[in-house]
């Protein structure tokens, strides 16, 4: 996994997935939930974008919206989702359905509940293959599924083809999910907390597997997680979400090594690490994540931000735009001036915790 310093799209090839000003709002009895509120990002073929955020940051809703899996009756989507140049927002359900599982696929957090308990894993994989290959016969589909099971590292794939999800261990089940997602060779794979339900030694295997498969299939991957450690391992680019918006975006180097947003600082100094002074206190972010129904005015992070009052009233009244900072491709949504941010980072943040 290279950590190129230039995350910008390569010249000549447009990014495979481009999301612009995405808004996902749904109505509930309590009010309108602004789950995603003006989000833009892009992923290239062969690259991995890590979307990081706490619960309620809108990261999972984003992935469901890209796949068109949201409840169409309750949800309002605006903005653009361009997949290989094709606009998905506003596309009829039937056409989105033909893309799902073929051009873009998804794996989920808990493989046990994400697989149907009553069907053999082989049947579930062949089903995914045949729905997009109507001409494929039973034999061909079976062969393809067995190949995929072998490819994701399941021993004796032909025998395990006929077994049911509950006969697999947690890690093997997630491999099955990956095999199913990749059976049609999609160009975009969205992995929503793919290792959160797994043990740490198994998590390491699955992350390796995803990286290997990406090298082989050259697909774009969006990895959604709350775990900064996972992102630091596999992502090329990172998007940090808070209250349905992007607060910081850039290469993994930029965001995790030279973070510029106070929320990212907070996250990094909250995470316990295997290195550094174990006796030093963690520096948590005060308060709680906001409610998406009733987001704070201005910058959604301002009630928890140590530096919010340095801008007079601006943090409270005006939502900051995502703007490029010093380095190319590194974007931050914060009212602090460049100089102020650099100074705070140098004097306060880089000294402590993980964000050294």
């Amino acid at each position: 996994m290279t950590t190129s310093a230039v995350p910008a799209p390569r010249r000549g090839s447009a990014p495979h997935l481009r999301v612009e000003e995405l808004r996902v709002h749904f109505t509930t009895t309590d009010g309108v939930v602004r789950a995603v509120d003006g989000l833009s990002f892009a992923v290239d073929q062969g690259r991995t974008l890590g979307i990081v955020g706490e619960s309620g940051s809108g990261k999972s809703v984003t992935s469901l919206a890209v796949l068109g899996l949201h409840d169409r009756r309750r949800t309002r989507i605006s903005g653009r989702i361009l997949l290989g140049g094709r606009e998905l927002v506003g596309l009829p359900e039937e056409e989105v359905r033909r893309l799902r599982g073929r051009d873009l696929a998804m794996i989920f957090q808990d493989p046990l509940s994400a697989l149907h308990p009553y069907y053999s894993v082989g049947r579930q994989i062949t089903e995914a293959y045949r729905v997009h290959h109507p001409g494929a016969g039973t034999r061909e589909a079976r062969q393809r599924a067995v190949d995929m099971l072998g490819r994701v590292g399941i021993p004796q794939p032909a025998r395990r083809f006929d077994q049911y999800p509950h006969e697999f261990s947690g890690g093997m089940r997630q491999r099955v999910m990956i095999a199913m997602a990749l059976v049609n060779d999609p160009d975009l794979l969205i992995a929503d907390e793919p290792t959160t339900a797994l043990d740490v030694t198994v998590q390491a295997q699955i992350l390796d597997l995803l990286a290997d498969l990406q090298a082989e299939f050259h697909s774009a991957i969006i990895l959604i997680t709350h775990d900064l450690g996972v992102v630091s391992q596999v992502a090329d680019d990172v998007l940090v979400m808070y209250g349905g918006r992007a607060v910081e975006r850039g290469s993994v180097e930029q965001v995790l090594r030279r973070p510029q947003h106070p929320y990212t600082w907070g996250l990094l100094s909250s995470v316990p690490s295997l290195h550094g002074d174990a006796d030093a206190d963690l520096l948590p972010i005060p308060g709680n994540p906001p409610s998406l129904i009733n987001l704070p005015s201005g910058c959604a992070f301002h009630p928890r931000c140590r530096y919010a009052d340095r801008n007079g009233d601006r943090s409270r009244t005006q939502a900051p735009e995502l703007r490029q900072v010093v380095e190319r491709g590194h974007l931050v949504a914060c009212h602090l001036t460049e100089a102020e941010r650099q100074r705070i980072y140098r004097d306060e943040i880089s000294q402590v915790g993980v964000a050294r």
Partner: protein
Amino acid sequence: MSGVVPERHARSGQPGEPLLRVRGLAKHFPVRSGFRSTGVVRAVDGVDFDVRPGETLGVVGESGCGKTTTGRMLVRLLEPTAGTIEFGGRDITHAPRRELRPLRQDLQIIFQDPYASLNPRHTVGRIVAMPLQVNRITPPGGVKARVQELLELVGLNPEHYNRYPHEFSGGQRQRIGIARALALRPKLIVADEPVSALDVSIQAQVVNLLRDLQRELGLAFVFIAHDLAVVRHFCQRVAVMYLGKVVEIGDRADIYERPQHPYTRALLSAIPDVTTLGPAGRIRLAGDVPNPLNPPSGCRFRTRCWKAQDRCATEEPALTPRDGGRQATACHFPEADPVDRAGPPARPGGPG
């Protein structure tokens, strides 16, 4: 948290009787099919450790290693199958409920899911006061004053005394659970994954709170967690469990800097750490944890171990102290070098 860190209570090497002494502790769950018993799951299978007053012991391991079962036996939510638990010099392994009651004051538990462990129909005041009432204790100044003092101690607004659990966020609920555990001024708290259900920013708040309380009140902890990084920030001693056994135990520095058991090394190597970009350490274990219904013979870790030899299949390694006694490892071929964070071999074998 600022200021001088007070002198640790009972730091390593300090003499004195352990507060908690566990020997050969085991829990076997029978597996039934119809009316016949078809086997036993040896969830915990002979575990030894001590916890001194004011000491924090972390118990870590992957799913199925028996860490939660161990914690529940310590507070007698589960009846041990074998072994002894001594608390404050008294054998409480099979003490009847009536005798346990005074002891409950000294020994409390905090659960993983803060919401499930709080009665939704009771106010926070009532929840926190419950241990006092059950034990018929009236603190000087009255129950309400004591409860408000506790709420303040855990960083909650004492005026929220009359609110219900659903009005609080996840982190605040965990604080309520902590306040309840502190109500009787216990000497030891068993904390079962107390922060794993919380968001990262909230997790740090609760870890810091527990650290402050531990120092200020001189509490001993058995801190059960799967996250080795959290344990490193909270615990002075660490026990690593695998399939019902303690495979390694030692002081924090021993476990994190000089782990001797291959499994401890693999665990540390597998953890994705924010401080390193790119793939984590080089040790990759093959496959998943074996089924505890049918654990491997000899050393239970041998099926995933890159150092395993014939002897490991036939002879079970004992937890043997090395280097003068504070660190003990159950391995026939322990590692000797300090960990280089990358670990010895390069990804032995594929998954399987």
